[in-house]
């Protein structure tokens, strides 16, 4: 029971004396205070929530553009100067040939890295995915919080919530695509942003 809960929500996996062996003291406290029946319903509730809560879910899937590559809803995170931001977007490769995202540039960006965030036993880690991002034909590649993202590193200017930044995306086949990405604390609401 508790194992099932803590696997869903591993609050932490090592720690204080109050910690159950399975980790997940939040889950443990629920189980203790509400009993098995309620924690069962908590599992069901959480099962419904972990995947797509908080409006982070991608909007209804835009159909792949026919015979072209396009970028849907790019946005970046705020950052302090000298800090890093992350770029999120959906890349829709509607063509029949593979393409590759080679680079993302803007005057304020020093360098980029392509990362995948992974949760190893409650510890969050950003794993490098390589220098470039492969975009198979007739495929959408989604970059989103807590998952794949392009790191915009060592910024020379702050990126402030509510403003936006112009980015040049360099694709091997398509060439340069210029986009304006809003700077946001969290994902844009479902649907298009104006």
């Amino acid at each position, binding site marked *: 029971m508790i194992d099932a809960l803590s696997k869903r929500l591993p609050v932490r996996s090592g720690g*204080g004396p109050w910690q159950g062996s399975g980790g997940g003291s939040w889950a443990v406290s629920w189980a203790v*205070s509400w009993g098995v029946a309620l924690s069962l319903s908590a599992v069901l509730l959480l099962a419904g929530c972990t995947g797509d809560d908080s409006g982070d879910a991608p909007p209804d899937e835009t159909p792949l553009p026919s015979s072209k590559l396009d970028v849907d809803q790019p946005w970046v995170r*705020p950052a*302090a100067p000298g800090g890093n931001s992350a770029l999120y977007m959906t890349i829709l490769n509607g063509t029949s040939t593979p393409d590759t995202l080679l680079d993302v540039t803007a005057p304020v960006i020093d360098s980029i890295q392509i*990362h995948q965030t992974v949760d190893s036993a409650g510890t969050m880690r950003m794993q490098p995915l390589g220098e470039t991002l492969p975009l198979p034909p007739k495929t959408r590649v989604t970059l989103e*919080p*807590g998952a794949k993202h392009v790191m915009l590193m060592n910024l020379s200017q702050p990126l402030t919530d509510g403003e936006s930044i112009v980015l040049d995306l360099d694709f091997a086949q398509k060439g340069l695509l210029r986009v304006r990405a809003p700077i946001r604390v*969290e994902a844009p609401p479902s649907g298009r942003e104006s």
Partner: protein
Amino acid sequence: MTRFAAFPLLAAFVLAGLGAGCSQTLDPPVQDDLDDTEYTLTTHDSTAVTFPDGYSGDVLVVGYVYTQCPDVCPMITANMKKIRAALESTDGVRFVTITFDPERDTPSRLHTYRAAYGIDAPTWDFLTGRPETIDQLMKRMGVRTSRTSTNPNAPADTTDTYFINHTDQITLIDARGRVRGEYMGSRTPPKYIVEDIQKIRS
């Protein structure tokens, strides 16, 4: 042993059981009492503050980040913003974001970062401190961190630029400095944390 002697003994057991039960009835239960600790930290405005004593009397929602972290840490901060927005009243509730990268996250850097994230509430401090202090605090709060080079090809001991692998956590502390909740910072839906805040406040 006679039955007469056994009876009061039994009664004592029952009472002891009840007593033990009473201390457990707090909901959510106490997970740690920070009464024995005091960490001297510095706010984004370069003001000294003790944690958690300096905030006693208020319920505290604590998040842990470093400002070079663009993916998970902003999810934690965004979650805290949602919790704050979902509260009918923020009276008696304060928010605190503590960096686990004190060497780079100076007060002025935290100041810029906080502003970039559109946080201007006087009841939401960003805190840094001496590395040893932060280290002890993170250990006590159960936040584990480890450095990793930003250059995937660099030798492991490179120290110039680094990312930090870290526990993803929000901690809820009651007005008396007791830990009452630990959540997955970026992923626990805000409503569960809001529910616990309401319980602690009532």
